[in-house]
């Protein structure tokens, strides 16, 4: 059985956000919820400053606090290592969200895709309302909803339950890459089987010194980061007193 993991090459990542847009489209993610997100940081004092960007998603932890704490087993592990969420079992207690050290689980505080439920036309008498548009094109909640998400998770997750990244399990089951990996224009995301020593992810983890987020708490994240984006140069120096 494969053990899926992702390597994110921070030298290749340009912070364009295509991963987040692709994820949103593929998984019908509503506004305010981020299956694919980022941590940004500005360090230094002007003029010596630099901006750092780390893309984030569910870490599909080997020892997942969300899975351990979920009272109804809605949050569970698949044999291939993917941390999945079953909306039918979720009671909305939000303990997984509380328990997640990475801030990648979100709660549907209200019925999703609020914008597309509006009956108000952008130009009264001139354009259709968002709701009419959704009905006209036969979309589910949005005009652009992706029906392929259906199956292992709800196409649109209802209010009162949590949701998060699934490593695009529905695509992986069809031998396709997660859509954020597919969409990355810089090939900064590499997906594969950690249990195969010859897989691309295993090769990269052997070649570079990877780090994972909050490794010290022992959750065994399956999203690894290698290298860093920093083209800055500096004059060779020994410092001074």
């Amino acid at each position, binding site marked *: 059985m494969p053990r899926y993991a992702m390597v994110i090459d921070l030298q290749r990542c340009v912070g364009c956000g295509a991963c987040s847009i692709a994820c949103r489209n593929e998984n019908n993610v509503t506004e*305010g919820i*981020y299956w694919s*997100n*980022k*941590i*940004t940081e500005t360090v230094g004092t002007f003029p010596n400053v630099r901006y750092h960007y780390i893309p*984030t998603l569910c870490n599909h932890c080997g020892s997942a*606090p969300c899975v*351990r*704490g*979920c*009272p*109804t*087993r*809605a949050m569970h592990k698949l044999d291939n290592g993917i941390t999945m969420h079953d909306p039918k*079992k979720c*009671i*909305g*207690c*939000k*303990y997984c*969200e*509380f*328990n*997640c*050290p*990475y*801030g*990648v689980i*979100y*709660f*549907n*505080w*209200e*019925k999703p895709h609020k914008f597309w439920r509006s009956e108000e036309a952008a130009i009264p008498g001139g354009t259709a309302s968002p709701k009419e548009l959704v009905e006209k094109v036969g979309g589910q909640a949005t005009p652009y909803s992706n029906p392929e998400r259906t199956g292992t998770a709800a196409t649109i997750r209802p*209010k*009162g339950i949590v949701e998060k990244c699934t490593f695009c399990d529905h695509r992986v089951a069809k031998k396709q890459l997660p859509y954020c990996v597919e969409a990355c224009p810089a090939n900064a995301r590499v997906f594969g089987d950690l249990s195969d020593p010859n897989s691309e992810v295993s090769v990269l983890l052997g070649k570079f010194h990877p780090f994972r*987020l*909050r490794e010290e*708490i*022992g*959750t065994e994240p399956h999203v690894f980061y290698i290298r860093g984006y920093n083209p800055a140069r500096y004059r060779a120096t020994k410092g001074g007193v």
Partner: protein
Amino acid sequence: MNGNKSLYPIWLGVLGIAILAGAVAGAFIFMQGHILFNANDVLIWTLPLGVYIFLALSSSGLTLLSALPLVFGIKKYEPFAKRLVFLAIATLCGGFVSIGLELGSIFNMIYIMLSPNLSSPIWWMGAIYSVELAVLALKFWKMHTGDYHSGFSKLLGTASFVLALIAPLMIGSVFGLTESRATYFGPVMSIYCLLMAVLSGTALFILYSLVVGRVTGAASSGECAAVLYDEFTLILTYAAGIVTAFTLLKIVIESSTTIPAFLVYHKFEHLFGSIGVFGTEVILGLFLPFVLLLIPSVRGTAGGRILASALIFVGSLARHMEILLAGQSHPVGPKAEQFPQYVRYVPSGWELLVLVFALAVMLLLYTLGERYLKLNEAPTG
């Protein structure tokens, strides 16, 4: 309720209106979702969960007190046993109203039992409190039918005592087992919850008994009352002392540690204000009543006892809220991209209605129990 017969229908009317308002709020929450709460993906749990913790722990404290006569056979406490068990049931029912609305539906509470995860502290918390409610109800029924001393009745008393010991530990572990939130103090939070259960349960019992005694004009004198006034107040003083010591230690550690999570925690804006490192709810809801209870001339008067127990009881809810919110005050990981560095909280009107609903259900049960269930009854023989 002989003393103030004319007030009784008014009191019932007030409770009826409160329950109606709460039920309407519940229907809106069910239809519109938790967007009605001032919660978000950083402040995940707010007032409804704080109220549940407060009432569930108070219920455990009342059950632990009931064990004095029912498990350890201390005869002089027997006249209070039936009332203590009933108050524990009613208080837990109030807590269940609050957690039911926090979950958005009563069916979600039931579903926990149908798909159990034995590694989840939330599952254990829900399961133990559900079983405790059932055991307490059975025990109360046995006492109501005059059976205090049969083997089965004693077994129920012992079971409820053990459950009341474990349940607060489970509430504490919901927070304490969260590796990513160091400010909840890990397993120590379970001990804190157990201490708080004894404290708020004892305060509730003294406050309730003294207020009911004054309103009805009953049970204000005699040997039973003397025991209540003196010995339960002593238990309250001890409990307040232990919680005060624990709280001081917690504040010292929080103030001196260099663990990054605590450095962020220091910047949390106290919900009720503070003087230095001491939150107002700690000063007024714990330190002040403890000092009052240490003064014999205050401890010895009914007014002093009502004041001290009321401060402790209300202060307990405030302290639970403060701890609950402070641990969630800053965004985790990438959520800092969408939320401010520190998130402030004021409950919404809907959340306050959940509080009103839970308290009204609890008080209605108290009222009906006092009127129809002979809570002053002591075992014969």
